């Protein structure tokens, strides 16, 4: 028999008893429907989860300066002073796998406001990009501007913990605080982030333009680092550091073209403690590391055989969490899908067996007029497959509709998953084959004489 004729025959047979066909395939409808709905809702929330884990900084890269080794005494990581804000600017400009990058300098100081004082865990000098890299938001006020950085403006952003300790319930915006006897104007308050993965309070922070921190706070004292850079480390342009300490806030004095010709190597104006960069996605981290390595080796003029004079760290822990969470969710859904489709398949098998018994006479008659065992097998198998595919199709529509409904009413994130739809279709066809085979085989083994006589 030709295939289309068999399929047409199966459809007609099913149409003869639509109520039963519908009930039979209900298991598949529910199975496929729930799988599709869960897949769509699940992949939507996993997408959202990914985003929020990425916001925590899963795609974050930390670039530290390398270590000094003087006379066998290692200075420890970050002891070299060879990472500059220019390196950071170059990373932003030349590494396509990097979304944003911010230089960081830090000091430890007491913040004073009126009769209150507080020592924040972190006082950091940075740029506005820091907020983007860390996924921070400004709750009140405005962010640090480029002009603030160029002018060494005494402005700062403070975290929730600092705000609470210094201001109680007052609005801190446009109030003043003092750090090492320098007055800063609070221009914004950061949205609370809570503790990070090692238990550090991320709201106990003051952010200021890196130039301000570098030249106004840390250079006035020797507390910022173990090797007071302004006095000892002549290669990093410490004389300029002293220069900027003066009242003139001009960071880059205009150079004449002659001067530029004479000294084409730009001076390292300042070193930073760290560059914080964020890759475009968690998957792009290896590429980003490569790009930064190549760029910095070039900028630092390292010979091919010398070691890197910087260290790049990524958040492997978080990335692993991210991938294992996604994997877990997918596997969980797969298990549920398999179970429900199995239940549906057993339902199909059950009814097909009943149907074979009920139609014994028909089978006998078909054999008497010339149907071979193979024809009977095909007929019942195709019937089961058609039933499953119709069920699968209805299930896909219902599941998709359900997911859309959830998206509309509960505002959950939903993502249509084409692979899930294809898989559901294939799986329902295979369920038809697997669970339809036994009843069809049973039908094909019937003896026509017995079958014709069956009451």
């Amino acid at each position, binding site marked *: 028999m030709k295939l289309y004729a068999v399929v047409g*025959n199966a459809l007609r047979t099913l149409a003869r008893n639509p109520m039963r066909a519908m009930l039979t395939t209900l298991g598949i409808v529910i199975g496929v429907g729930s799988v599709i709905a869960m897949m769509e809702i699940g992949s939507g929330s996993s997408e959202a989860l990914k985003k929020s884990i990425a916001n925590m900084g899963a795609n974050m890269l930390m670039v530290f300066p390398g270590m000094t080794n003087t006379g066998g005494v290692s200075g420890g990581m970050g002891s070299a002073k060879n990472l500059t804000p220019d390196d950071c600017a170059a990373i932003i400009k030349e590494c396509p796998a990097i979304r944003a990058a911010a230089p960081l300098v830090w000091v430890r100081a007491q913040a004073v406001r009126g009769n209150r004082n507080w020592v924040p865990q972190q006082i950091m000098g940075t740029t506005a990009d820091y907020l983007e890299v860390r996924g921070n938001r400004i709750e009140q006020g405005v962010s640090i501007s480029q002009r603030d950085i160029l002018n060494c403006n005494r402005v700062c952003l403070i975290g929730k913990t600092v705000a609470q300790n210094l201001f109680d319930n007052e609005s801190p915006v446009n109030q003043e605080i003092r750090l090492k006897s320098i007055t800063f104007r609070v221009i914004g308050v950061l949205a609370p982030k809570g503790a990070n993965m090692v238990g550090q309070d991320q709201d106990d922070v003051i952010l200021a333009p890196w130039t301000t921190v570098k030249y106004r706070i840390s250079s006035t004292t020797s507390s910022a680092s173990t090797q007071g850079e302004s006095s000892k480390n002549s290669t990093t342009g410490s004389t300029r550091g002293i220069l900027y300490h003066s009242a003139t806030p001009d960071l880059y004095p205009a150079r004449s073209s002659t001067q530029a010709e004479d000294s084409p190597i730009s001076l390292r104006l300042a070193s930073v403690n760290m560059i914080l960069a964020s890759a475009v996605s968690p998957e792009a981290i290896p590429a980003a590391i490569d790009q930064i390595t190549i760029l910095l080796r070039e900028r630092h003029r390292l010979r091919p055989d010398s070691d890197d004079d910087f260290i790049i760290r990524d958040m492997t822990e978080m990335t692993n969490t991210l991938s294992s969470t996604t994997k877990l969710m997918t596997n969980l859904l797969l298990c549920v899908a398999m179970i429900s489709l199995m239940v549906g398949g057993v339902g199909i098998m059950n009814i097909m067996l009943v149907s074979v018994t009920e139609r014994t006479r028909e089978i*006998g008659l078909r054999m008497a007029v010339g149907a071979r065992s193979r024809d009977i097998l095909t007929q019942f198998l195709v019937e089961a497959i058609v039933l499953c595919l119709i069920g699968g199709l209805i299930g896909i529509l219902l599941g998709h509709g359900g997911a859309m409904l959830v998206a509309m009413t509960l505002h959950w994130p939903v993502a249509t998953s084409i692979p899930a739809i294809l898989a559901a279709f294939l799986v329902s066809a295979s369920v038809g084959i697997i669970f339809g085979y036994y009843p069809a085989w049973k039908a094909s083994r019937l003896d026509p004489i017995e079958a014709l006589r069956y009451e």
Partner: protein
Amino acid sequence: MALITLKNIYKDYYLGDIDVPVLKGISLDIAGGEMVALMGASGSGKSTLMNILGCLDRPTSGEYWLDGEEVSRLSSDRRAMIRNRKIGFVFQNFNLLARTSALDNVAMPLAYTAGQLSNREARQRAETMLTRVGLADRMEHVPAQLSGGQQQRVAIARALINHPPVLFADEPTGNLDSHTSEEVLAMFQELNRTEKITIILVTHDSHVAEHAQRVIHISDGVVVDGVFGPAGGEA
């Protein structure tokens, strides 16, 4: 040569480890165009012989020549093909597919015919057949909407759709009243006369058997009467 030749057909059934012989050496000839009645009491082996003749069953030993071909040793697929091409069946209980139109019922065997006809041709042939049995105005009716006689006529149309040389009718009037029985039997006679179709009526009703040209009596697994009918005897 005869259309059907049986030579020394034996059929045993195995019940546990006891052999139960049902047919004990049956030999007979049926010529093309004959109308034969196969008679016998229940348990005589009549149904078994009918199943062997209809290629639904195989004899334990012996030869069965149908239309010049030894069919007793063929595989089940080959026998299915023979049933499709050379044999038509009419049953006591009609055996029509429920909730299926008369037309589809009649066209059903064509689905198993190798070298198939197109849908349209199959339909046309079924229509011709139904018209011939006088049901031109009942083509789209389902069996539940037809009377017993009409249902049996649909069954006859179905049996004839592939123009088989031989038609088996197993108690064709068993479920019909006497009036419609006459009609159906008259139709068999007419088919036999005009189309030269060999018709074998299996019955225990002597009144039905009277419509045949020859009556073969079976008793206890052997032919007791009618091995050589008037036609066969003369030939």
